[in-house]
């Protein structure tokens, strides 16, 4: 089923081998400032203003989390533990600023432990509300303004309205290109596998957008010359929290599934929405954008939105089954999965719920479960 990896795919693969890839290093050499973030409620566009660029934190090749376990305990989600382990090992030494979101208690305590153990010179926590209305939108816009002012004061960067508007436009160009590739997955025989798509997206999130955009455009050209994938047993959608390692999707696809839709934190639905630039308040535009592009169980009033988004995607992308992946100890997804699985099954959508660690493990078990799931759908 897998298409032969082209030249650009190899670039994406290579960019994912390190938490700070060569494009990040290149940008830093050029005098630009990498700002790390780990949650989809941070608007990337804000961190693309002037010399800043956002780097989505991931920990490729993490093997153990011994130091992090001492501080965070082994009952905290392995993504946060992996991040703390890398932070303690100085694997993010290029990063100049850190933006956290108290999206969940795990992220919140990661911030606390990082602050205690490493005292980063710029470490900010963005107070994102857990419900959306006029008041919280206003609050979120103010939060973004506070962050922008702090960035301007600390790094001496231009966070003016014009600078932010320019950054939002750059984000929009970038998002449109990524989305156009994502759209190809609606076809009956998409030219791209879920693994490839996720490699591209993760590489894009972990790199300066302007530097990776030419590679993405090359990839687009490559795809236009490709034939569609015909040999697959079932079209699948992956739903859940942080999923960074494309190998997880590769294993799913090795059993005959074709992942055509990604509704998880680092996925594109609806993570790569464009920003509606209107009015004079760029912060409000960005606040509206983050509330739109991130769908997390932390948002208390959005269960129906989470459910309906999945149902709509199932129709739009002709999905046969949903794989719900949850990182062990994630309370938000762990608890939300209970009504979500029931509601999806009530709507006749087959669901496979997988509890996993952040780093890939238990591959044999994963293969068996995916295989059984596909068979259970009669595919």
């Amino acid at each position, binding site marked *: 089923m897998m298409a032969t990896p082209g030249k650009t795919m190899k670039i994406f693969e290579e960019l994912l081998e390190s938490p700070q890839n060569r494009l990040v290093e290149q940008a830093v050499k050029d005098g630009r400032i990498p700002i790390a973030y780990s949650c989809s409620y941070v608007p990337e566009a804000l961190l693309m203003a002037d010399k800043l660029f956002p780097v989505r934190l991931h920990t490729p090749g993490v093997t153990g989390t011994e130091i992090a376990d001492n501080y965070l305990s082994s*009952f905290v989600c392995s993504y946060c533990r992996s991040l703390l382990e890398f932070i303690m090992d100085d694997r993010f030494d290029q990063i100049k600023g850190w933006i956290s979101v108290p999206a969940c208690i795990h992220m919140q305590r990661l911030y606390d432990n990082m602050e205690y153990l490493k005292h980063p010179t710029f470490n900010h926590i963005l107070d994102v509300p857990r*419900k959306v209305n006029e008041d919280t939108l206003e609050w979120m816009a103010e939060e973004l303004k506070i962050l922008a002012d702090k960035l301007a004061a600390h790094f001496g960067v231009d966070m003016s309205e014009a600078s932010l508007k320019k950054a939002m436009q750059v984000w929009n160009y970038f998002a449109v290109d990524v989305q156009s590739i994502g759209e190809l997955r609606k076809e009956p025989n998409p030219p791209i596998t879920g693994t490839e798509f996720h490699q591209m997206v993760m590489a894009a999130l972990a790199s300066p957008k302007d530097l990776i955009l030419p590679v993405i455009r090359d990839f687009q050209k490559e795809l236009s010359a490709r034939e569609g994938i015909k040999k697959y047993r079932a079209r699948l959608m992956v739903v859940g929290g942080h999923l960074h390692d494309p190998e997880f999707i590769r294993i799913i696809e090795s059993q005959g599934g074709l992942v055509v839709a990604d509704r998880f934190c680092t996925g594109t639905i609806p993570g790569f929405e464009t920003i509606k630039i209107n009015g004079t308040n760029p912060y409000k535009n960005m606040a509206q954008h983050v509330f739109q592009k991130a769908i997390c169980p932390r948002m*208390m009033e959005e269960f129906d939105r989470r459910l309906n988004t999945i149902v709509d995607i199932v129709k739009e992308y002709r999905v046969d089954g949903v794989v719900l992946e949850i990182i062990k100890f994630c309370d938000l997804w762990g608890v939300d999965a209970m009504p979500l699985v029931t509601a999806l099954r009530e709507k006749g959508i087959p669901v496979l719920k997988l*509890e996993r660690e952040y780093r890939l493990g238990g591959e044999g078990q994963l293969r068996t479960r995916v295989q059984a799931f596909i068979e259970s759908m009669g595919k």
Partner: protein
Amino acid sequence: MKINTVIDNAKSKMTDLPYLTKRFLRNSWAGYLARGANPRDAAVFAKYWIMNWAAILHWIGQSIVKLGPIGFTRALYHNPWILILLRVNGASNRLTLGRSGMYHDSICLIMHTICLGVIDQLRQMLFDPKRLVIFEDLVPYDIGRAMGLNCYLLELMGIVLPILYSDASLPYIDEAENSGMNPDACSLPKATVGMVLKGHMPKGVAMVSSNMPCDAGAASYAFIQRAFNIPTYRVDAPYHFYNERAEKLFAKDVKGMIAWLEQHTPCRMDWDRMREICEGRNRMLELETELWEMISVKPAPLASEAVWLSHIWHFNVTAGHSRSIKLYEKLIKMARRNYENKIAATKNERYRAVLWNPPFLHFGDIFNWAERTYGVVLINDSMTYNHHGPIDTTSPDTMLRDWGRTVMQGPMVRHTRGPAEDYLDDIFRMIEQFNLDMVWVANHVGCKGGQAMNGILRERCRAKGIPLLILDYDLSDRRIVSHDNMMRQVEFFMENVMKAKRLDQQGAA
């Protein structure tokens, strides 16, 4: 079912009989007398024993009249946990073991007020369901009461039942896990969800929940709302809450909640009633502060349940209620009498401890055991301690602002949001304020936020030379860490860190 299975099951039950009989006798009045309590204490215990039964029987009679015999039987069938309330005297018996005088009396009194409070909850729940609104446990229902609503705290029984009977939550925890809830979640939301799944909860006409205190609790309301299919309002406390901007946002949110409740229930906000409740709260705060001042002196005139159990019920469930104010007035009198006569709550006081994180619900008497075994006295705990000011009752706006502040700066809420200092500073502040010797962390396995602070806390305590016990347990499930295991952890700590001998061995040495 085959007859052999029935016989085997019966045999298996029979093997438990000696243990169950022993436990029953130990928890009964006979058991109380058999442990050789002095006649004065026995008389006080008997008084409350009778008062608790009288209250329960009165409620049963009232329920039969209001609901009819069939309606009452149906209510018991749908809410079988109500029967656990009958164990209230057994729980008093356990908690008073080894305690005498005012300390003993205060515990009997608190258990009695909780018994009355639970009965009030049952009345609200059963007698007028059309006005019943469900509240999440960290949104105190002062506003609901001011509006004249019947209110029910959804998590309440998940907290109270294990205090009365250790295994009370287990069937509900199992039900939630079997239905797909993550087993590693906190057992309180699991028990709550389990009760909802089994249909053992009142439904109400509307529900108010929040983002407090933790992820599992907040997330569980997506399920509960679908299960109940009733309109739900969610209050959202900001992460950074020690500032005017956050207070304004929260007050606006609460105002939105009031408007929403007026829209979804037949009741209207009565600000005069709200003022009375807030003034009652202020009075309780004043009295509790006085109590803390007295217990900060060595030896403490009252301790343990007199401090934490009184707060957990009366501030969270019936704040401002005349019964709660009276309880605190009585506690103050008892504490003052001991204080002025230089009588220690317990003659064994050797070490003064603070308990951090949720109390040991299913093993409420562990401090009783620690007192008798090592002279460790619980002085205060994180669920009780606070340092917010009173509510300004000048106008509805000041009430909303300060009531909101009280919620956001209340126990648990302020320790689960904001930077690490919000969690840590209180511990060290309490050590100074209450003259403490050690910190006990109730290391609830389901509480990831608390677990993730242990590393920092350990190093901070080490740097300050404060002995720290991180006691592993599960809030409502003793199958995770047994009572024996919990006692062993205390023993290891006392012997290896504190170099303390058991009190019964001190004479021998």
